[in-house]
């Protein structure tokens, strides 16, 4: 195990790769270690308190990768993301699970990363690189580096909606989750972004639904069109919670319910 006390020291650390894992909250890495740690060669432990900070930056909010879900819930600036943070496990998990870790959480986890995808967050690597979250998620597992932070645009709470579908309450994992950024100007929607969780091996955008809504008013016809197109871009599979068939069947239903809540 290598301990990194300050983020500046990242350079001396081995590049995270298939056998190097970053230990932050522990919900993923400690679980793997408890079960033998197969495939884990080295662990990087980051303890720099700066990694946990949440603060305003430019037009958005910068969230340190080691900020926990509980930290997010304590940040008024992130009110739009609170519904997504609130449904990550029970209180103990929310005290441990980090924003950075959620970016790497495999199916069916990663509801918060999915919300960040809908919010069009930027991912900041420790080496200074930044990229859109969609690119980061797309290359997940192949990229090397340590995520230091994400920045999210300032979101109007009324324009951001999150919905989680789980079999059990209040803590069940996602059968699917949906987040939608629905900016509005003059009665019309701007550039809509809709994310789905647990509908693929990583958080995915429902591009068909986004196109059906962007620039339209949120009327029943637009909602119908969005729901009809909502599977475009998604790639659900069977898992212990539900089959691919069921996920495809109810995705439009849950998207409709989310959108009708907004209207």
């Amino acid at each position, binding site marked *: 195990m290598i301990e990194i006390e300050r983020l500046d020291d990242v350079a001396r650390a081995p590049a995270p790769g298939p056998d190097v894992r970053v230990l932050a909250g522990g919900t993923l890495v400690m679980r793997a*270690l*408890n*079960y*033998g*740690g197969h495939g884990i060669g080295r662990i990087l432990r980051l303890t720099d308190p700066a990694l946990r900070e949440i603060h305003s930056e430019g037009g958005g909010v910068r969230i340190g990768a080691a900020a926990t879900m509980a930290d997010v819930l304590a940040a008024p600036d992130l009110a739009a993301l609170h519904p997504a943070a609130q449904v990550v496990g029970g209180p103990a998990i929310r005290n441990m699970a980090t924003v950075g870790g959620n970016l790497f959480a495999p199916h069916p986890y990663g509801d918060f990363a999915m919300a960040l995808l809908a919010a069009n967050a930027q991912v900041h690597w420790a080496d200074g690189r930044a990229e859109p979250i969609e690119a980061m998620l797309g290359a997940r597992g192949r990229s090397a580096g340590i995520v230091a932070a994400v920045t999210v645009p300032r979101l109007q709470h009324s324009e951001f909606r999150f919905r989680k579908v789980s079999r059990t309450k209040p803590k069940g994992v996602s059968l699917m989750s949906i987040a939608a950024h629905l900016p509005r100007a003059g009665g019309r929607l701007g550039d809509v972004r809709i994310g789905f969780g647990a509908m693929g091996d990583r958080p995915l955008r429902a591009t068909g639904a986004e196109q059906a809504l962007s620039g339209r008013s949120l009327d029943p016809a637009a909602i119908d069109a969005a729901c009809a197109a909502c599977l475009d871009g998604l790639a659900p599979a069977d898992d212990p919670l539900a089959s691919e068939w069921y996920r495809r069947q109810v995705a439009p239903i849950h998207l409709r319910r989310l959108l009708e809540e907004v209207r």
Partner: protein
Amino acid sequence: MSSVEFRKELFADERQDDLKQIGRPAIRQDIRGHVTGRTAYYDDHLFERLLHMRCARSPHHHARIRSVDTSEAARMPGVQRIVLAKDVPNNLNTLLSLINFGKDDEPLIAGTKVSYRGEAVAAVIAETELQARQAAAAIRVDWEVLPHVLDVEEALKPDAPQVNAVYPDNTFDYEPYDHVKLRFGDVHKGFAAADEIVEATYQMSPIEQAPMETCGAIAVPETADRILCHTGTQALFFSLGTTAKLLDMPSSRLHFVGGTVGGGFGGKVDSITEPMAVLGAVLTGRPVKFQWDREEEMQVGAPRGAERWVIRDGVMRDGRIVARSFTGYFDSGAYTRLSSYAGTKGVGHLPGPYSIPNVAANVFCIFTNRTPATAMRGFGITGVDFAIECHMDRVAERVGIDPISLRILNAYRDGDMKAHRRTAKNTALVECCQVVADKAGWRLSAEDRAASSLTGTTAERQAIPETALDEEGRIGERRAGRVTGTAPTERSTGRLPAGTRGRDHAAIPVQRPDMEILSERVGHRMPDPAEAGGAPPLAAAAPARPTPPAASPPPARPASASPPPASPPHAAPAPPPAPPRQPEPAQPAHRSEPTAPTAPARGGHDPAPPAQPKPYEPDKPFSRGVNRPGVSRFLTGRRR
């Protein structure tokens, strides 16, 4: 939110409610330990130099083991010992051999073949759990993957892969048949007379007992050359006897401590972790813990097996069910564990709490290449009840009768004859129906409200009808392709006269009168000795035949699968020949009879334990887990 009420007015005349302690909401004896974290479960005992044991497991549903390469694992840090099948002294067992039921069919560690995914092929004992895990992952097995079968009905086909060599037909042997039969009256005559036939199939799912504490045990070498075992077992002497048998050691060398368990729900009867831990302690001379993690608990630990039930009812327009047949399939997985018992227990439960004059059932315990099934809360019954009660609603719909009314109409009453040929007594189904309907505001007819479990029996309902018998499904016939049907056959080969039944089985009386509680202190009406035989007051004189002795080991199966003898049907009520109780080397449960020359008494500094189990000696500590009923050594001496 929830509420509880006691309906003391019901059955008040059968009960005294002036007992001093019974009925009180006394605080649990164990609760203070629970809330202070002081309750000691098996894992809450600390030992210096504790070792950890982990298994290497099969990734295949069915495969032959060509070879096991442990060389890399043996060199890994912290590894103290690798354990293979050859290290298990008596590596074949079945749980219920302790009560002489079934054949030994399951190794503790597989040596030649695995029959389910997750079956153990080796174990590693190491200084830390992580080291044991990593070394277990480094064990290399050369597999020859075999075809597998996962569906119960597929497994019955003649060409299905053979799951378990001890039961080559993929069915448990209920001698002389490959299934349990229930025959009461003539269902096919009943179906012919019925106005409606209602048939459906019901499927249970495998369910995990999911106790919060996973299965496990810690074994510790103790003084006097004994092994102490802290265990989370649900059945202390089951686990003790099973361990003694698998490890071929006198059970008096085992000291099992448990009794405080973090939930069981049936899954902790299987007695796997105890022999593993004790074996580890024997081989290393150090304390060894064998504990399942949650993944093992969920996919390696035995679930409640899936059951499939086909129910066919013949019903009259007025709602009376006149015939009911069952075809049941218990998915036992790769080995028997307790599923054989579930089949029998399930059959004893048929046709549910209803009086039906014609009942038949064929119930199979079937081997498939899945995790062996075992007990769970409601064992053998939950699935039958699901099927029966869903079916009752189907029947109610077909004949247009209120679902509760249909149940009350058919409900068994005191004195009714049940399909397993015992008289119903102490029944209360009707009252439960009435009370819950009242609570929920479900209106019942005046007739249904007036019904009672105490009345309503008739001479007809008390009688045992003439019964159609058959001999279809003898062991081996299905594999040979000579029988394909699984439902109770229409081709009966004989008839048992009306009224034929054996004798009831009662509690063994107390040894001395002062062990009996005084009747005035018991709080309810004591059984009338005249009723003990269960003879219904209205029943006609019945020819009786004795039931066969319990759970005697079935005689060895004929080696050749030759056609069954066309034995004549039961022309007269004669008991089937009781198989002689024969000592079987692999089933030492009944070794209480001295079968070997008495070994010399062991002194305090006796060297190695004898390889052979010692014969039963009444003045020695308890031997072999379970003894012959009624001869416990605790009660042999004369009291003061």
